């Protein structure tokens, strides 16, 4: 007779001393783990619920401005520095880690229209309603020294926007025309116009550094090559675009914020229809900024909300609002991909988390692992109706809620009418126009 009976040595399964950690022998045999899918689903549901429980995105409010915040600029080399310009011509430099204002200077008379930090981070430029471009040192002036610009250029017309080249000592302004300036000269090295119009913003491409784009008040977005004397091409839309931002990772895409409550992501090469139409705002969109990963962007709107959109999604994944936040004029996504800064009409700058339920600070390895696991589970079960409902649920201000409902009804009515027209006319005479094609008037080269 040959016999063997299971006989385990407890020493192999129990820790030796109390100072050791407990032993956990694993066996991944699927038959020992029944109900795999239902258990994972339950975990995903729990993770989704916890996500909503811990969603506390608002971090701090930076107050100090005595008028509405009109523009902001990220520091190019320091994560903790933020510059903001207000409607009374005041510029403030903020220390974000201390959440306090480090320096205040009266830069312009009237609005500060645009602001940009030079790529080296040692100085910054401002433009204002007083027709001047000023360059300032980043350092605080020493005791007894006066706040004076390094350089002042007096222009002929009002400037409305400004951006700096990524590598060279060249910057661009916009106003009645788009000007390219050399830092050493007091007159523009090149000016672009295309018909009589005024421009609201200008932005350099982060990768193809000689390219730039601008939004014009004749409802067009114009692309330029700095090396050429004439603009490249423009797309005319049904409504005016306010600002635009290039995708930092796929720099042939840019997103523009539009007056018709939508944002449009375009491929620079094919302007005849946008890649994606991002809808959800219920009032004009005023500003947009990409995350440094290029996967998402944040938009600020006149409807007093900030929304976060995935770059290829038509609807927002997140909406931020507070009772006291008024029309949001400008918004920035911090360079470490963790925070969002919004400047609004009621003189405050607000600091938000980019992921509402994220835990800030250093994570323990096991914590990080479990977070990654639950992230993956949420992704896996995201289309299940329960989980979808919980992830999508947001509390909205009353007016935004009703406005969006109204917009939905209007849209439905328009669609119904179109359908009826199509039904009662000769087949082929009323073509189906896609949402993407609806908003583009023409492309001019």
């Amino acid at each position, binding site marked *: 007779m*040959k*016999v063997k009976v*299971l006989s385990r040595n407890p020493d192999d399964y*129990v820790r030796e001393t109390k100072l050791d950690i*407990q032993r956990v022998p694993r*066996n991944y045999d699927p038959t020992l783990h029944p109900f795999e899918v239902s258990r994972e*689903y339950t*975990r995903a549901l729990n993770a989704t619920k916890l996500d909503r429980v811990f969603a506390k995105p608002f971090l701090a409010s930076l107050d100090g401005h005595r008028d509405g915040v009109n523009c902001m600029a990220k520091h190019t080399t320091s994560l903790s520095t933020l510059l903001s310009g207000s409607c009374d011509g005041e510029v403030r430099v903020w220390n974000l880690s201390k959440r306090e204002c480090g320096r205040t200077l009266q830069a312009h008379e009237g609005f500060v229209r645009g602001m940009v930090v030079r790529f080296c981070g040692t100085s910054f430029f401002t433009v204002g309603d007083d027709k001047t471009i000023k360059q300032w040192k980043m350092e605080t002036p020493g005791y007894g020294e006066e706040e004076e610009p390094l350089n002042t250029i007096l222009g002929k017309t009002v400037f409305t926007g400004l951006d700096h080249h990524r590598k060279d000592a060249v910057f661009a302004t916009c106003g009645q025309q788009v000007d390219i300036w050399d830092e050493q000269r007091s007159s523009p090295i090149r000016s672009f116009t295309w018909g009589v119009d005024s421009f609201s913003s200008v932005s350099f491409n982060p990768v193809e550094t000689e390219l730039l784009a601008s939004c014009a008040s004749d409802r067009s977005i114009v692309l330029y090559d700095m090396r050429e004397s004439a603009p490249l091409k423009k797309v005319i839309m049904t409504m005016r675009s306010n600002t635009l931002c290039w995708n930092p990772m796929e720099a042939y895409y840019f997103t523009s914020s539009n007056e018709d409550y939508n944002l449009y992501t375009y491929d620079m090469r094919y302007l005849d229809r946008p890649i994606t139409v991002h809808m959800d705002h219920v009032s004009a969109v005023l500003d947009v900024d990409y995350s440094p990963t290029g996967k998402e962007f944040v938009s600020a709107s006149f409807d007093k909300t900030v929304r976060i959109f995935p770059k290829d999604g038509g609807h927002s994944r997140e909406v931020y609002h507070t009772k006291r936040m008024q029309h949001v004029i400008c918004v920035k996504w911090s360079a470490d991909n963790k925070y969002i800064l919004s400047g609004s009409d009621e003189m405050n700058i607000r600091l938000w988390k980019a992921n509402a339920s994220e835990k800030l600070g250093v994570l323990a390895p096991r914590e990080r692992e479990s977070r990654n696991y639950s992230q993956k589970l949420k992704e896996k079960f995201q289309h299940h109706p329960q989980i979808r409902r919980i992830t999508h649920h947001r509390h909205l201000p009353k007016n935004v809620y009703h406005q969006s409902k109204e917009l939905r009804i209007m849209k439905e009515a328009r669609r119904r009418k*179109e359908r009826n027209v199509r039904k009662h006319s000769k087949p082929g005479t009323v073509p189906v126009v896609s949402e993407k094609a609806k908003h583009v008037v023409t492309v001019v080269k």
Partner: protein
Amino acid sequence: MAVPGEASVDESHVGENKTPPGRYWKEKQEEGKDGQQTEQTLQQKKKKKQKAKKRKQKEDQRDGKKFISGKSDPFPGPAPIPEDRVQKFKRKDKIKKPPHQHYKLRDVIARSEEASEMAQKQAARFDLLLPEDAGFLEGDEDEDTCTISQEDIAGAVDITSGAKYFNLKLPQFGPYRLDYSKTGRHLLLGGRRGHVSCIDWQSKQLMCEINVMESVNDVKWLHSETMYAVAQKKWLYIYDSNGIELHCIRKFNDVLRMQFLPYHFLLATASATSFLQYLDVSVGKEVAAICTKTGRLDVMCQNPHNAIIHLGHHNGTVTLWSPNQKEALVKMLCHQGGVRSVTVDKTGTYMVTSGMDKKLKVFDIRTFKPLKSYFLPAGASSLSLSQRGLLSAATGDIVQVYRDVWSTPVTKPYMAHRVRGTAWGLHFCPFEDVLGVGHGEGFTSMLVPGAGEPNFDGLDANPYRSAKQRQEWEVKALLEKIQPELISLDPSELGRVDHATFEQRHQDRVQALGFDPLAKEKFVPKYKKKGRSSAGNVEKRKKQVAHEDQRDVIRKTVEDKMKMEKEKKQREKKAAVLSNQRSALDRFKK
């Protein structure tokens, strides 16, 4: 493609030069210097990708100059994993790749498949490292294993294992029902005449012992060893491990049998009034009460794979129940005469039943078809399946254990043992080679080598867990309690694509939009210059496209036809093979 192995042989100069045993600094220099060396390593990398068979052929040609000793690696590449091990961890078949225009979906699917394949391989590799092996019992030549007595086995094995064979003489309050906890550490005994005791049976420590002064129909551990349920004469009671009565649940009356669904925290009870009731023990609420309208319910078991409750009835049917439906999911006529006992194996594939017609039948409950039928002279009063698929059947006072009842026709039991009184309850201990038998004279713990799963999972059911670990496990288990609504015949249904809902939603969308956004666009020929867009030409081009489409359709139908024919042929072949076998009735043929 160039053959990398040969090339390296021709071009290698290190081997020809017969350099003295290398030094690591020298080796490094050489590597830096000549391009051939790096080329060779590159080729080696390329080679790794090739199939193992090719690798074996070329093995002798290649000389690994990577090694100082000059020897080549006899086992290049990652260690091979046995196919059956990989198969064990396979979750689903590969998905057919979507067409090229859905490139994003294609990418997502490719990535996820890659990840799952890696996980599968890693799990299979880990499987080789599991510490314990299953037990076994082999007789000498001309010796049946069923003739080996328990005393012999207990004498032959080590002392700790030998101590697992014991008898408890409890003649006063029997016969006994029993239940092992999920980890297999704790034993709960319930005597017909009111005696309830729980024992840490390995250390033989008595945790509590009470007499409820009422008849006891069934006992069951709840999710951990701190609580258990006792079905008494009238009501259902919950006690803790010190024997203190926690609850008397008056909604559950005349309970005869109970089953606990550990992942759902549900206690399913079958009563004499033909009610099947579910109690959620985590919140203490009755989840469902189903009137089965089939009389007294005293045969019950659960399918551990999908948490469906199987009930056996007096008319020979077995019915399958979930808490979400007032009607039985399935009704199977299994026996002529009443069903005496039912049990389902761990993977939810096989169901074993025994009936008053003295038959023992095996069913495949994926297809609900009978597989095997055995005749037991005395009939089995209770059945139990172990984790590794051993079947124990009690006939009177004899307990028999069978092996492989569903795959091979069984003629002899694997083991047999006579207990003192009539066996009343049978239960295999999880993760141990032990079968507990409750009978009229007490309790017997039998050794059944090869019954228990040798390697447990520490995060699921850990027999060696500390109190702290148990508490932590309890919290985690409660957090991932599966809702009773998710109980269905196929537990993986939740992970599949819901085509019905998708189609419904698609229809709604078409209704709302007024056109089908996913419809195939009609072919509109491009306008071509230089007279190539004449009406005839345009027609011709249209025809070409239509022709292509038609060809696709035809190709598909032909492929389908071929497939069907192939299957048919295989079926015929199988039938032919089967018909060639001689049957017992052939001798009567002239």
